[in-house]
């Protein structure tokens, strides 16, 4: 069920250039299930900034009723978020949307992420591993300074890193790595910039894949029609990223 809760900030860390890891606690965590779902965060009690910010759930700890978000503090709202300290409260609406269908993977899955699309793949990797699925992580970042969670992913499976400037791992995009890897997986899951999602679908036309999309949002729950995309189904068909997604099977969304 979707809840709105003033959650307690437990920890906030700067983990890479402009990247923060924020852990909060509250009973809303009881409602969380699928990796790839997101929350809609109100960063201040003021109406400036007005809108909530959609942030993916990066990892869930049901026992301690905590979950973690990883975000880039770039614009006005996320910068305010980055000022929160342990003990502060933030207003969280969630969990929202439909996440990655972990039950679709059979033996081995590719998890392909770019930049701030990487965070939801971490909870996904954890859940897949606990189901006995082997995960391979192909992660793209701007530069060495922007990389986060490399060790954490490595602990869960093979991890390949690409950086645009070549300062760490393969130089270029995740697709450069994909070209080198055997297609020995049954399912892929991907989250990142739209161009990356396009490239990944292009690379594996025969595979079962699931992609997480981004759109500017208003309500975050399906009521305002801000976040729609057309689909391949028909001329008049469309989906809402916030409530029908953000995760969709490959080949469905026209982005």
């Amino acid at each position, binding site marked *: 069920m979707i809840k709105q809760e003033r959650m307690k900030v437990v920890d906030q860390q700067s983990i890479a250039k402009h990247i923060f890891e924020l852990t909060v606690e509250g009973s809303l965590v009881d409602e969380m299930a699928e990796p790839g779902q997101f929350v809609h965060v*109100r960063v201040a009690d003021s109406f400036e*900034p007005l809108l909530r910010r959609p942030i993916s759930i990066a990892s869930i700890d049901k026992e301690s009723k905590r979950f973690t978000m990883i975000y880039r503090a770039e614009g006005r709202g996320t910068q305010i978020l980055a000022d929160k300290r342990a003990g502060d409260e933030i207003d969280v*609406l969630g969990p929202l949307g439909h996440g990655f269908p972990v039950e679709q993977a059979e033996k081995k899955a590719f998890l392909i992420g770019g930049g701030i699309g990487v965070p939801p793949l971490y909870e996904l990797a954890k859940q897949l591993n606990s189901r006995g699925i082997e995960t391979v992580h192909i992660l793209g970042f701007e530069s060495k300074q922007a990389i986060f969670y490399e060790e954490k992913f490595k602990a869960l499976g093979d991890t390949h890193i690409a950086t645009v400037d070549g300062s760490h791992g393969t130089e270029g995009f995740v697709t450069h790595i994909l070209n080198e890897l055997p297609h020995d997986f049954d399912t892929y899951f991907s989250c990142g910039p739209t161009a990356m999602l396009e490239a990944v679908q292009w690379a594996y036309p025969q595979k079962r894949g699931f992609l997480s999309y981004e759109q*500017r949002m*208003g309500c975050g729950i399906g*009521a305002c*029609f801000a976040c729609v995309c057309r689909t391949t189904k028909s001329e008049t068909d469309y989906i809402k990223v916030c409530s029908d997604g953000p995760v969709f099977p490959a080949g469905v969304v026209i982005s």
Partner: protein
Amino acid sequence: MIDMTVKIPGLELKNPIMPASGCFGFGKEYAQLYDLSQLGAIMIKATTVETRLGNPTPRVAETSSGMLNAIGLQNPGLESVSNSELPWLEQFDVPIIANVAGTTTEDYVEVAREISKATNVHALEINISCPNVKKGGITFGTDPAVARELTRAVKEVSSVPVYIKLSPNVTDIVSIAKAVEEGGADGITMINTLLGMRLDPKTGRPVIANITGGLSGPAIKPVALRMVYEVSKQTQLPIIGMGGVTDVDDVIDFLSAGASAVAVGTANFVNPFVCPEIIGKLPERLHELGYDSIQELIGRSHRL
């Protein structure tokens, strides 16, 4: 006991609070969060004759204390609204105000005729003011004579009272209000969004794919309040006021300025529970202010 009820043409409201059109879909999403029967009424998303896909994305952008939207009247079309959305809403004890949009007078007439037959539709809200459609919409709301004739045409076919939704993007909103009054409108809803724009300073490109969008939220409240005040002073029509309402004192302001009921739009996105929260706080706030009923408060700014 504080009397929270409001009676205006077609509507016996248990309280004066309702979500504004386009900010609440057809109710399904918010129904996951709370019982919609608490609401005074629901203004559903604009309905057009045909299914509409609306504008390309991005469709929303944030501004200082406000937001721009250019959804472009996306909706499943008259048939689907009549056969599926409205029947679904019947499970709640809440009157529906159907928001009607179109490109030609014939469009408006067709939607108004059909949708007003639904048992739970107690009033129509004729959206002559949407800034996000290229044809029709906007001119209906800016020319008094055109607005009057459209009102007449819709009144002729509607089975329920007709409220006209005014655009704030006009030189003289009172002249439009008077024109729709002449045309036989039963009430007015106001205001729709102000036409605005945001650019990305990095690229110079408009953030909204449609280039311009409608500005809503707390930023526009002073303009909305001024217009409600002017129109309520110069026409006899009941007004459902809106524009930037986020809390109970905003509601007090709109009622004071002359609105009989108040709609909440953008604030639903910020706090999805805003409508029931305001409804919960209203009786105590009225009591603090020394009023026993909503009715007493309506238009008090004119009586000072």
